[in-house]
């Protein structure tokens, strides 16, 4: 986690250095903007898991979020924020929804945010969310980033600057198949607003629940087999799974 933060600071340094002496403009919006796994971790060389570590920088693709942080899984599961609680493994990446916003009030959508869907093969279900949902798979929605667009929907890139949208291959490489995950979240919906339009990309398992993965405690991944969980730094996968199960069976 510390390494992740350090990397982010270094990257930010490079991003900002070019703005020396330029003005900083503030525009104030006056209205709403708008299991493949077998046994749990038992030793230093587990015979399960992905071929490489998770690249946690992928979680910055959509920006930075300041989130409520629960000290323990029990605290989180006692609150109403986690109607879905499961363990599983990453099975693949799919195209997700697109959200169009009229952020500047120009009368047409001028901002487009794209999402990726992480397909999770369910290992153990603590809370299913919906009795009618697919019992074998669940999806996690992660932002790929947002971009300014013109009224024809074309991205605006001054001087052919790079895209702010991460492609799906980047997600596939960052989130290896068979990575173990713990979900404690709620279904994804677009942030509401009078000028928000959602174009859904249906997941391949159309009856599966889609969870919002913006909150790292909602979508916690095992960065490398046997190591700490991203989002729950003080826990291994086995510890997080055990405490989650205990919290729910004791209620």
């Amino acid at each position, binding site marked *: 986690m*510390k390494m992740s*933060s350090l990397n*982010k*600071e270094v990257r*930010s*340094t490079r*991003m*900002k*250095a*070019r*703005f*020396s*002496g*330029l*003005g*900083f*403009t*503030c*525009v*104030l*919006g006056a*209205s*709403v*903007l*708008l299991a493949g796994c077998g046994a749990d971790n038992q030793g230093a060389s587990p015979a399960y898991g992905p071929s490489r570590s998770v690249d946690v920088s992928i979680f910055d693709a959509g*920006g*930075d*979020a*300041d*989130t*409520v*942080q629960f*000290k323990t899984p029990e605290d989180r599961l006692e609150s*109403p*924020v986690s109607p879905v609680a499961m363990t599983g493994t990453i099975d693949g990446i799919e195209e997700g929804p697109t959200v169009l916003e009229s*952020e*500047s009030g120009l009368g047409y959508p001028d901002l487009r*945010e794209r999402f990726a869907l992480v397909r999770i093969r369910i290992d153990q279900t603590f809370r299913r969310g919906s009795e009618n949902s697919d019992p074998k798979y669940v999806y996690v929605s992660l*932002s790929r*980033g947002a*971009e*300014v667009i013109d009224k024809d929907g074309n991205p605006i*890139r*001054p*001087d*052919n*600057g790079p*895209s*702010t949208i991460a492609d799906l291959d980047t997600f596939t490489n960052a989130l290896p198949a068979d990575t173990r995950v713990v979900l404690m979240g*709620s279904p994804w*919906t677009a*942030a509401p*607003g009078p000028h928000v339009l959602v174009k859904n990309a249906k997941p391949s398992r159309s009856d599966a629940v889609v969870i919002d993965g*913006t*909150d*790292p405690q*909602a979508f916690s991944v095992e960065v490398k087999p046997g190591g700490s969980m991203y*989002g729950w*730094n*003080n826990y291994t996968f086995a510890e997080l799974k055990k405490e989650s199960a205990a919290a729910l069976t004791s209620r």
Partner: protein
Amino acid sequence: MPNTIVQGAAFPTFDNIAVQTVVNVEYHGTCKDGTDARVGQQDLGNTIFGETTCVLLNSNSFCDRWRVRINYSLINSYSSTSTATTNGVRKTVCHEVGHTLGLAHYGNGDPYFNSPDGSTNSCMISGYQGGGQAWTRTYGPHHVGHINAWWS
């Protein structure tokens, strides 16, 4: 009302940047030359206080425009008084705008410790709103040092 509170928190946050750092601040109704940050209020669900996203990169891969979203409803739900709500919004705006200046946050997974300023927190702490103390609306020496180095 919520938008007024978010807007009311944004102005002193940017004014503070001009006081604490070398960054020049201007207020405009539309995006201009320089780095733009648009601050607004939006319902981001039940665990996200605020969110900052770069929506436009220039040809040198530096961010030219930021979207900053403040979840008034969630902050208000964690506050027992209107003063606490205002303080929470102010902390969140300070935190999110700090990202637009290049700062990373601290405290993920360990929300009460690991400030880069030792025992003193700053608004860049994540997941903890504080109680209206001065640190909830200012940047600590560590972060000010980074900002001034990057923006000088």
